[in-house]
């Protein structure tokens, strides 16, 4: 069985690495990028090949294209993948508009490996 491919987008490289480590231990195939724009290009370019993104984990606050803009761009381009948005506690107002979108789940920072794997399970069915 093919490994599920998870793409992590966060401008904080150390967060990307820490999340990657947890997911690799759990046998996921992981790519991380530190920029929303590059993230979109990666998803778009690989949407039909074996590097296809099965789950996207993205931060909201990022320089350049932020998490919300990335989600909207994926939507405009009809790319439908489960998304886990990493948020801060004070961003609850910002995420209200996405609350009823089934494919989007929110993970509040700071999170431990148990929270991360629980939410992966939720979007990964």
């Amino acid at each position, binding site marked *: 069985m093919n490994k599920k491919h998870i793409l992590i987008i966060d401008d*904080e490289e*150390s*967060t990307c*690495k*820490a*999340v990657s*480590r*947890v997911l690799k*231990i759990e046998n996921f195939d992981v790519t991380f990028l530190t920029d929303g724009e590059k993230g979109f290009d990666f998803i778009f370019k690989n949407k039909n090949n074996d590097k296809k993104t099965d789950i996207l984990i993205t931060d909201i*606050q990022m320089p350049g294209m932020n998490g919300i803009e990335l989600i909207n761009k994926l939507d405009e381009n009809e790319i439908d993948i489960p998304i886990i948005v990493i948020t*801060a*506690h*004070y961003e609850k107002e910002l995420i209200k508009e996405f609350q009823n979108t089934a494919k989007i789940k929110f993970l509040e*920072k*700071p*999170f*431990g*490996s*148990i929270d*991360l794997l629980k939410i992966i399970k939720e979007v990964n069915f």
Partner: protein
Amino acid sequence: MIKNNFSLKENPDFKNIVEVLNDGILVFDKNYRIIYLNKFITDMTGFEKNELLGEKIFSFIKKKNNNKFNKSQIKSIIRVKKEYDFIFLKKNKTKIYFKTRLSPLFNKNGNNIGTAAQIKNIIKDKKDKIKIISKNNLNIFQTIISGISHDINNPNNYILLNSNILIKIWSEIKIILEKEIENKNFKIFGMKFEELSKSIEEIINSFAEGSQKINSIIRNLSDYVCSDEKDHDEILNINEVLKSVLILLNNIIKKSTSNFSVDYGSNIPIIKGNNKEIKECIIKILISLCEEIKTQKYSLTIKTIFNNNKIILLISADKKNNKKEIMKNFFDTVNEEKIIKIDTKSKFYESSQILKNIKGEIVIIPGTKSKDIYIKIPSI
């Protein structure tokens, strides 16, 4: 235009308009006797209309420096259309600060027949300005706190995640070491394998614990700073409000007393109010009390209880470390004279006003070697 003005004066509604103005209007004749005052004046001073009408104006006013006016000073002032600051002596003998614009009144022949005074309450004006300034500062403060939260959250997040991974890795290493190394009597930093293994687990767990603690501080701080000021109907649990306050004030309390305890009462009904404002009341009281007890050896006790249909938060500073109990109908038995009244000068004035909005109150009962502050809030 003239006709319009004339008809307005004759209109019976005209008097009503003056009566309900948000500024005070006070008219006195050429002998300085008050001949008219509107509702604003009676509301602000506490006098009834008939207690002021016919009385001489300088019996009630003082200069900014608290000195009384004499007749000639009043004379020279009222002839000129100008703005002055006065102190008005209220019925209850306290002072109120007025900004007054005086306009001399003349009859058809050009003779002075008295003076009209338009009056504003300076304190209210100043308070409004302070409110605007604090609101602006709050926005800056909110932005800074959000930024700091974000900056702390990121490293905190990878500390937590990495410690989770490290604990998993260590548990695997431990199994291998136990299997592969026959002689486990080796020592690292003077510790035997068993001791070392326990220490490593404790160290890694403390990373995760520290990270959770940082998270709790950041969460409470941003909740406090960024919460909605306008919503006065938030459903609140006083124990949760108190817990959040104590996280924010942990260090201040620790510095003030080595004997601190908190007792969260059970089955306490919910209250309605603004989360931030109620937290602010408790914070102000606690900071002020901590300042008072800092240099002396007082114990500080906080208790929440439901007593006589009121939710009571008791903050008690005591030199003898006495345990405070609140009996049913406690407040009915307290000698009124013992209670410190909260007036405009009190540092708890603003807090008491906030609580008043939700029908709550602050009661301060000082003892010889103790001080008890009760915050009473009705349940919903």
